[in-house]
C-alpha cells in the first residue's frame, strides 16, 4: 500500500495553514422567525457560564489539539462558535438536525436533545497553556508571543495524586445545564465537530452545583454536607468582579486579547466519604469552621455573618487554626477572592469498593498565580480537611471574552497575526 510522502502531506498542511480567518458567523444563522430566545450566548462582554446563574449539571471536557494547522484550528473554533450558539438557543448542533438530512447519511446532530428545550445551557470555551507552546516550549501555532504570563500550568501541589492523563489540556469546554442530557449533548456534538482537529483528553460530569453565583440563589451543599461557597463573588458585585475575576486590558501586554475574559482553574477533589462520615458532628464543624445546619461561622449565628478569627474560647480560638474557613479566607490572603462554580461529583466506585465521590472545583480568577496558587498551597499545608481530600486533577485555562456579532470565539487572539504558517512542532 502506498502512503503519501512527507512532501505531499506537508504541502497540504501548508495550504490549510494559509487559510482565511474571520469568516462571518452570527445571527444570520437562522431566519428570525425560527429563532427561539437564547438563554445564553457567546455574544457580549463576557462568555456565559461565569457570572450567570449556576445550573444544576456540568459536563466539562478538555481537549488536545491534534492538528498542526492553524487554519484547521481557527476553522474548528468557528464551527464550535456556530454550533454552540445554536445549541444554547435550543437548536440542533447542525442545520439539518437529527432527522432532517438524507437517510443515507449520518445526522449532523446526535439526537438525544430532541423534545427537550435548551435547559439553560451555557457553553464556555477556554484555551490552555498547550495551545501556545508545546511541552518543549516551542511555538505551536504562531501564538506563543500572545501567551499571557499568568497562563502557565499550575504547580504540582504537595499531596497531589493526579490521575495520569487527566489534567490540563489545550482547549476546554464547560457545558452547564439544568438537564444533564443537554450538557452531555453539547459536549458530545462539539467533540464530534472537532474530530481531526482536537481529541478529548479527559472529561468530568458534575451533578449538583456546589456554589451560588447570583444574589437570589441559595447556597447549596457539597458532599461533606456543608453549605459551600457562602463567600462567593456574586454576579451583582460589579466592583469585585472587575477586581478579582475579569482580566483588564493592561494586566499583561502579551495577553491584551484576554481583556474581559478570565482564568478558569479546575481541581478534582475526591472526598474519602467513608472516613468523613464517621467524624463527630462537632469535629466536622471545627474542620470547616462553620455550623453544618445554618452554615454560620462558629463565631456567628447566620450564614452571612463575617467570621471572627480572633474570638477565643479560653485559650483556644473559636475557629480553630486549621479550620477550612480560616485557612482560605480572603483576609488571610491579602483580600484575594475567587468566583467559584464547582460541582459535586460521584463517578462510581474505586478499585477497593469505596465511593469515587467529591467535588470538581471550578474557580474563575483574574490571576491564578496570585489568587489561586497561594490559597491552594495554604490549604494543602494547613487545612484540617486535607485529611479527607485527595486532589486527582489540576488544570488552568484562559477564557477569552465574549464575542461580537460576526466574530468567532477567540478571534481577538487569532486576529493578532503572529508568525504565520505550520507550526514547527
Amino acid at each position, binding site marked *: *500500500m*502506498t*502512503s*503519501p510522502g512527507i512532501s*505531499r*502531506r506537508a*504541502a*497540504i*498542511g*501548508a*495550504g*490549510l495553514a*494559509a*487559510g*482565511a480567518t474571520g*469568516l*462571518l*458567523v*452570527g445571527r*444570520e*444563522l437562522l431566519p428570525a422567525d425560527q429563532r427561539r430566545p437564547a438563554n445564553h450566548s457567546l455574544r457580549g462582554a463576557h462568555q456565559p457560564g461565569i457570572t450567570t446563574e449556576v445550573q444544576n449539571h456540568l459536563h466539562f471536557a478538555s481537549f*488536545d489539539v*491534534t492538528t498542526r494547522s492553524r*487554519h484547521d484550528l481557527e*476553522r*474548528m473554533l*468557528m*464551527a464550535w462558535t*456556530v*454550533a454552540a450558539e445554536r445549541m444554547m438557543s435550543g437548536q440542533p*448542533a*447542525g*442545520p*439539518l438536525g437529527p432527522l*432532517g*438530512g*438524507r437517510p*443515507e*447519511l*449520518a*445526522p*449532523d446532530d446526535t439526537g438525544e436533545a430532541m423534545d427537550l428545550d435548551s435547559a439553560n445551557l451555557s457553553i464556555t470555551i477556554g484555551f490552555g497553556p498547550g495551545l501556545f507552546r508545546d511541552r518543549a516550549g516551542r511555538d505551536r501555532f504562531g501564538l506563543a508571543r500572545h501567551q499571557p504570563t499568568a497562563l502557565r500550568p499550575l504547580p504540582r501541589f504537595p499531596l497531589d495524586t493526579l490521575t*495520569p*492523563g487527566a489534567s490540563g489540556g489545550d482547549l476546554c469546554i464547560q457545558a452547564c445545564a439544568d438537564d444533564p442530557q443537554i450538557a452531555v449533548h453539547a459536549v458530545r*456534538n462539539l467533540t*464530534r*465537530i472537532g*474530530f*481531526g*482537529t482536537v*481529541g478529548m483528553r479527559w472529561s468530568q460530569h458534575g451533578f449538583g452545583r456546589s456554589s451560588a453565583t447570583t444574589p437570589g440563589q441559595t447556597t447549596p451543599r457539597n458532599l461533606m454536607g456543608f453549605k459551600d461557597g457562602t463567600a462567593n463573588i456574586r454576579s451583582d458585585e460589579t466592583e469585585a468582579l472587575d477586581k478579582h475575576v475579569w482580566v483588564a486590558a493592561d494586566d499583561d501586554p502579551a495577553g491584551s486579547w484576554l481583556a474581559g475574559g478570565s482564568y478558569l482553574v479546575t481541581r478534582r477533589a475526591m472526598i474519602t466519604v467513608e472516613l468523613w462520615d464517621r467524624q463527630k458532628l462537632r469535629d466536622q464543624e471545627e474542620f470547616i469552621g462553620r455550623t453544618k445546619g445554618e452554615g454560620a461561622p462558629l463565631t456567628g449565628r447566620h450564614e452571612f455573618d463575617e467570621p471572627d478569627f480572633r474570638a477565643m474560647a479560653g485559650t483556644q480560638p473559636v475557629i480553630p487554626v486549621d479550620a477550612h474557613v480560616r485557612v482560605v479566607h480572603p483576609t488571610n490572603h491579602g483580600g484575594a477572592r475567587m468566583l467559584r462554580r464547582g460541582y459535586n461529583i460521584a463517578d462510581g466506585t474505586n478499585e477497593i469498593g469505596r465511593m469515587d465521590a467529591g467535588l470538581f472545583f471550578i474557580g474563575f480568577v483574574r490571576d491564578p498565580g496570585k489568587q489561586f496558587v497561594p490559597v491552594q498551597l495554604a490549604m494543602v499545608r494547613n487545612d484540617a480537611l486535607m485529611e479527607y481530600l485527595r486532589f486527582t486533577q489540576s488544570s488552568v485555562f484562559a477564557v477569552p471574552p465574549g464575542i461580537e456579532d460576526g466574530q468567532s470565539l477567540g478571534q481577538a487572539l487569532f486576529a493578532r497575526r503572529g508568525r504565520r504558517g505550520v507550526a514547527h512542532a
Partner: protein
Amino acid sequence: MRNPVTLALAAIGLSLSLSACGTPTESAPEATGSAPKPLTATEKTQVAKATAEYTKYVQDELAGLVDGTTEFVTALKAGDDDRARTIYPNARTRWERVETIAAEFGDLDPAIDAREAGLGEGEEWTGWHRLEKDLWPARAKNYTPMTDAEQAEIADKLLADTKTIQRQGEDLKITVTDIVEGSQGLLEEIAGGKVTGEEEYWSRTDLWDFQANLDGAWKGFDLLKPVIEGRDAALAAKIDYQFGVVQGLLDATKRGDEFVTYDKLTRQQIKALSDAVNALGESLAEVSEVL
C-alpha cells in the same frame, strides 16, 4: 454523514476548498440535505474503472488468503507452532483488507473470524481466533490445549471455508456503494476492534489487522478519488491527508520492519491512533454525501 464543520460553514454561506495548487479559495456551498447528482458520462467511465479494479483487488486478496491459509494450516498440522505463529498475522492481512466485502458473501464470516468474546452461549467456535488462542494461550486461564485431532479439524474447516469464500468471490459484482461502504466499514473495524486491542486478544497482533483494514479502505478511496476530487476537491484532499496521518502514526509504532504487539503500545500512541481514526472515519462518511 455530513461533516458538521462543513455544514456549519455552509450554513453561514461560506465554505473553504482547496484548489489544485493548495491555495484556499472560497466557493459557494452546495445545497444541504440534497441527494448527490447523478453520474456524468465521464464519471461513469471513472466509476466503471474503479469497480473493475476493486473487484480484482478483492479477488487477488482472497487468492492470497487461500495461499496464506494453506501455508498456515500446513505448518500447524506439521506441529511447527513457531512457524504457524509467524504466518498467522501475515496470512490474516489478506482477509482483513477485504473483510467487509467478504462478509457480505454469505454466512462464512463468523465461521472464519468469530472472536470468543462474541460467541453466544453454546455456540461453536471455529476459525482463526480459535487457533489463535491455542497458539498463544498465555492470557487464558485454566486453558486446556487442543489435541492434534481437534486442531486439525478446526484448521481443515478454516481452509475449506476460505476456499468457499474465494470461489464465491469469482463472480463478484461490486458497485460504487460497495466500495464506499466497504471502506467506511473497514474504518469502523479499526475503531471498534483493532485500536482497542480486542481483535487479536491472544496474539496481540492487532496492528497487522489495523494496517490491513487501512490498506483496504485506502485502496477503495484511491480508486474513487478521481470522482470524489471532481465533486469535492477539498474533501478528497482532506481524506488523502488523514490517511497519511494514520499511516504515519502506524509507521511510528514499528520496530524495524515489524509492528510491535499491542501490549507494547503506550497509552499516548493508542489515543493518537484512536483520534486519527475518528477523524478519518468522519471524513470517509462524508463521501456518501457526494457519491
